[in-house]
């Protein structure tokens, strides 16, 4: 017997979680979708954001969202540095993209281990007055713990969407991987454009990290689960489309939430990887294969 209450709550929770997934995946949509750089370590940048947030929150009592915002410029700079070295060591040399992927795979482990060494493997959580409260809408109960990340995720997505659609830099970022030579013929420096885009991608990770640690306790290995989510969202959403990513993230959120409700939480973390595997395996060859 399917209870409407249960179903409705699961769907709402899924939508809320989806908004948050969008925030986590934005960086991959930009970096992988628009720049063709498979930054598999992106979830670990998110987790790094979470730990920064946890540290500043527990030591100085700063609001997590505020921390996320403050950290964005720092993460932007980090992203710039990471891209510049990636460009220098790989793109400029004409190295195969696969080598870049292995590089980021190594970076993933480096970040994860560094976090373990610094913070240990215990679960950590942030505190803020509003996190325990919730909004009661009749049969559906919306906790702020989920609602605020959803809202921020949607705002972040919308903001980026307009940035890409309406600014010269945004358009240049959209064009750069489609044809970087053509972009230089428009008078834009492709390396600089990519550097900015990568910076933006990593900057979203600090906010996503802050949101993550608001939603649930974090531990270093949590990042691995998100690899599937971010790539599933980026690929399902149509690579490079920010709007599509939000849509895909919400679908994934709902699918996971329904799976957790009806089959048990242990299955839900496999949903995104299953999605991803399925999409990659059955899609027509050459659609976005390189």
């Amino acid at each position, binding site marked *: 017997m399917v209870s409407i209450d249960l179903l409705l709550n699961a769907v709402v929770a899924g939508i809320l979680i989806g908004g948050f997934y969008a925030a986590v995946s934005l960086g991959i949509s930009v970096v992988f979708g628009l720049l063709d750089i498979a930054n598999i370590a992106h979830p670990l940048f998110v987790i790094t954001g979470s730990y920064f947030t946890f540290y500043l929150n527990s030591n100085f009592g700063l609001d997590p969202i505020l921390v996320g915002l403050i950290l964005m410029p720092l993460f932007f700079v980090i992203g710039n540095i990471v891209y510049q070295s990636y460009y220098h060591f790989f793109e400029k040399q004409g190295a195969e993209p696969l080598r870049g992927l292995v590089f980021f795979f190594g970076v993933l482990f480096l970040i994860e281990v560094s976090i373990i060494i610094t913070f240990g493997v215990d679960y950590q959580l942030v505190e803020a007055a509003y996190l325990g409260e919730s909004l009661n809408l009749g049969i559906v109960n919306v906790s702020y713990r989920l609602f605020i990340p959803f809202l921020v995720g949607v705002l972040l997505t919308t903001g980026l969407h307009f940035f890409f659609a309406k600014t*010269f830099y945004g*358009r*240049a970022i*959209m*064009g750069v991987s*489609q*044809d970087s*030579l*053509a*972009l*230089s*013929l*428009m*008078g*834009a*420096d*492709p390396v600089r454009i990519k550097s900015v885009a990568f910076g933006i991608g990593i900057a979203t990770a600090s906010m996503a990290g802050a949101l993550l640690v608001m939603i649930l306790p974090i531990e270093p290995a949590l990042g691995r689960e998100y690899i599937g989510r971010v790539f599933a969202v980026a690929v399902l959403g149509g690579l*490079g489309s920010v709007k599509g990513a939000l849509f895909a993230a919400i679908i994934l959120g709902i699918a996971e939430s329904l799976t957790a409700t009806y089959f048990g939480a242990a299955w839900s973390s496999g949903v995104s990887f299953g999605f991803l595997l399925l999409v990659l395996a059955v899609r027509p060859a050459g659609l976005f294969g390189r």
Partner: protein
Amino acid sequence: MKVLHDVSIEMTEGETVILLGTNGNGKSTLIKTIMGIVPPNQGEIIFESEGVQINLVGKKPQEIVNMGITMVPEGRRLFPQLTVEENLYLGAFRREARQNLERNLSYCFEVFPRLGERRTQLAGSMSGGEQQMLALARAIMSSPKILLIDEPSVGLAPILVSQLMTSIKEMKENLNLTVLMTEQNFSQATKIADRGYIIVHGKIEFRGSNVELSGNELVKQYYLGT
């Protein structure tokens, strides 16, 4: 590989110059060298603007574009996943062009009304002729002084080529451009050119005025190798 051997060409303001020759003879390489896409082993490329001479060798394409030299590349090289409008806006990326954006945009839609109708269509989904129009319009959006056009007629039906040439001529006159164009289609190109060069195996084999180039025997001799 030596693609170009000791090639010298020059053009003065307001001229339309064509580079002729079949594929693989070095025409495109010459244009790419001017744009900074391919570095020359030897030689100079001098651009004179307001009495100042600048050597373009060693400059990156984006720097050259910012001096007011724009190229319409072979194969159009549009941003296929962006709309017509987004492609045009990207054309106006350079600072000086941003100020003239509205004016240039309406001019482009005036010359190519088809583009105005298809503003929101993805560039990659348009026909070859429309794509070539967009590539030209996108170059115009950057408010160039010099326009380099590489093989505009490739893959287009003859009637479209003829229309395209007329548009190029019109734009050149309205916007006071200096045009350098490589082209395989002899008769169409000579219709709008002031002067031209024939390149064979990386060497300039013939230079002459529009009238001299139109001699059909010469064409066959250099073109078909008879």
